[in-house]
């Protein structure tokens, strides 16, 4: 039995067999197999070679007639893949060392590569790069069958990986995936967001967890305490089974408040909206009690198809959500990706600092055709309900005005073709850069609403990469700096009489609900599975006590002090959450 502590990012308990997903971009950890699995792993190596050869033949045919280096590279790869003694060296390693096909491929190829690198002759040591290419080619095949396996699961598993990409999680068979444990990531990593939107327990920042599980391991993921237990003993298993039952009972209790309003004990109503990523989450959001969608992330359109989405793809995705929320707000956020994330973008030169680089609205403003396609679809969908548009990562007024001007251009285009749309569509921005927060009073006159994106706002304000497990603990919404910024944005929104919501992770964190209410927030947008619990908190408090709490937090000077204070206050209201 092995116990690992990480960061809890999505609540719940999962107990199932581990399904490990290695990444070809990270070191493949040594993972042992049972002697009985030997033949299967050897077969996987053979199949990976055969498929890689087929793939290469197809590529070579496509390149036929070209006399250049690319062809040469393919030719080298083909000869390696057809080299029996090379293949045998890998299968022998699997058999003698009893390790996975992935580990054997990675180890043997790295051995060969380091042999070249150490030879001293420049021409030959450059060949090490070819060897790494071959490694990647073979790993792609091997990891491809793992992906296939995850898509066609027949039994319940928990996913253990270094980090999950949107493309990977999109393919999961959600009936059988019961939880996630990853080495990288923080509360706001992709894994965390996906896990919460699916309502599955997840723990991240687990250092080298992929090297301590085997495919035979049973794993417990405790998404409440941030603990992962590998190969638990009988007593631990029993404890966790009971704990899981208890939690389910709590959940059932919560679901009974679904149709009750989110209203405080002293009669102040709070609007609870859902954050969604995929159109099919709209029904779940509704079921959990969302009275609209406060953040509809549209990145999936750009990430999962491999090609740039057509206007119809956008429209269909928006229309589906609009149908579920007739007459209720649906806030569509325009594309919020870095150029480095777009799978089809023409070889984007690597950025030294992508988080501060060409991304989100900045990318859109430089790629107007793509941006206009999305805006046209949003405008066309705007006649289907209370559709609103939101621009992410605005960092100054010029950017906002430019984006709005493009929106007006698109409206004029639609006028020309007499395509109906809502000319009074509400336009808002994500307040998620410190500059936007500090100049909120300048931005407000050009906006119908603000939505505070706390995830990025905290990251930029505290200068902490939330995905970096070494500094992730510095990332906290309880920092006084964050409090001051939020307070001033809320104040500016009130003064300008525009809409205000909070759509970052704090809006779903039980510990921050009272604080946000006390600071004047009346609209929260959060992961749908968290809505019942947050509603329960709202229904248990008075605005008077929230105001008192917020005033008190305003006098505190450290993250730790604020955090402890909020935790104590919440535990008194809703002890079951901890």
């Amino acid at each position, binding site marked *: 039995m092995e116990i690992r502590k990480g960061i809890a990012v999505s609540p719940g308990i999962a107990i199932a067999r581990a399904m490990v997903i290695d990444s070809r971009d990270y070191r493949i950890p040594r993972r042992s197999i049972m002697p009985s699995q030997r033949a299967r792993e050897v077969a996987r190596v053979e199949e990976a070679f055969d498929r890689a050869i087929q793939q290469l033949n197809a590529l070579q045919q496509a390149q036929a007639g070209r006399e250049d280096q690319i062809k040469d590279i393919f030719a*080298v790869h083909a*000869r390696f893949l057809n*080299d*029996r003694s090379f293949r045998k*060296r890998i299968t022998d390693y699997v058999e003698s060392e009893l390790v996975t096909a992935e580990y054997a491929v990675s180890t043997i190829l790295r051995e060969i590569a380091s*042999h070249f690198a150490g030879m001293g*002759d420049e021409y*030959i040591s450059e060949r090490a790069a*070819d060897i790494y290419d071959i490694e990647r080619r073979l790993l792609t095949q091997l990891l491809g069958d793992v992906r296939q396996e995850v898509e066609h699961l027949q039994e319940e598993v928990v996913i253990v990986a270094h980090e999950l990409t949107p493309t990977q999680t999109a393919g999961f068979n959600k009936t059988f995936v019961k939880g996630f444990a990853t080495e990288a990531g923080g509360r706001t990593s992709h894994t965390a967001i996906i896990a919460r939107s699916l309502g599955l327990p997840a723990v991240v920042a687990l250092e080298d967890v992929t090297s301590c599980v085997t495919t035979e391991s049973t794993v417990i993921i405790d998404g409440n305490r941030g603990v992962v237990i590998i190969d638990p003993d009988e007593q631990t298993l029993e404890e966790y089974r009971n704990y899981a039952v208890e939690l389910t009972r709590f959940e059932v209790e919560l679901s009974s408040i679904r149709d009750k309003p989110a209203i405080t004990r002293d009669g102040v109503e709070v609007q609870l909206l859902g954050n969604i990523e995929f159109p099919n989450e709209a029904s779940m959001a509704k079921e959990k009690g969302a009275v609209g969608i406060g953040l509809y992330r549209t990145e999936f359109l750009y990430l999962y198809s491999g090609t740039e989405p057509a206007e119809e793809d956008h429209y269909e995705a928006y229309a589906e959500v609009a149908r579920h929320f007739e007459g209720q707000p649906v806030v569509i956020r325009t594309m919020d990706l870095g150029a480095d994330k777009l799978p089809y973008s023409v070889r984007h030169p690597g950025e030294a600092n992508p988080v501060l680089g060409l991304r989100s609205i900045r990318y859109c403003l430089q790629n107007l055709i793509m941006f206009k396609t999305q805006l046209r679809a949003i405008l066309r969908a705007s006649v289907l309900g209370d559709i609103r548009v939101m621009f992410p990562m605005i960092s100054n007024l010029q950017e906002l005005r430019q984006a709005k001007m493009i929106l007006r251009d698109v409206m004029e285009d639609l006028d020309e073709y007499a395509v109906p749309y809502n000319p009074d569509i509400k336009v808002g921005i994500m307040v998620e850069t410190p500059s936007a927060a500090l100049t909120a009073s300048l931005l407000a006159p050009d906006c119908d609403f603000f939505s505070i994106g706390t995830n990025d706002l905290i990251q930029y304000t505290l200068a902490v990469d939330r995905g970096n497990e070494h500094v992730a603990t510095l990332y906290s919404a309880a920092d006084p700096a964050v409090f001051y910024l939020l307070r001033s944005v809320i104040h500016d929104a009130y003064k300008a009489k525009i809409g205000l919501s909070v759509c970052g992770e704090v809006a779903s964190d039980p510990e921050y609900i009272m604080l946000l209410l006390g600071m004047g927030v009346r609209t929260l947008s959060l992961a749908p599975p968290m809505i019942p619990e947050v509603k329960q908190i709202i229904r248990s408090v008075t605005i008077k006590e929230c105001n008192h709490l917020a005033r008190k937090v305003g006098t505190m000077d450290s993250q730790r002090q604020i955090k402890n204070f909020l935790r104590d206050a919440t535990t008194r209201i809703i002890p079951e959450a901890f």
Partner: protein
Amino acid sequence: MRPAMQFVDTASRFECDIQVANDDTLVDAKSIMQMTMLAAICGTRLRIIARGRDAAAAIAALRDLVEVKMFGETPATQGNADRSER
């Protein structure tokens, strides 16, 4: 890797077992992995050992590739093949 590739391709056309030696390392001439790891850089002396029905033809073809055609590259990339066994 082009020279190693050409060498392996030429060797693979023959049925006989062909081995290449460089000082004390002996490798299979038909394996690209082993050939590239042999580290035959410009000017290295190679010994080619072939055993089998078409061994003489194999040696001739490989000698031709290395000494006459010089891998189709400049004379600077030159090796020497010198011995055969039956």
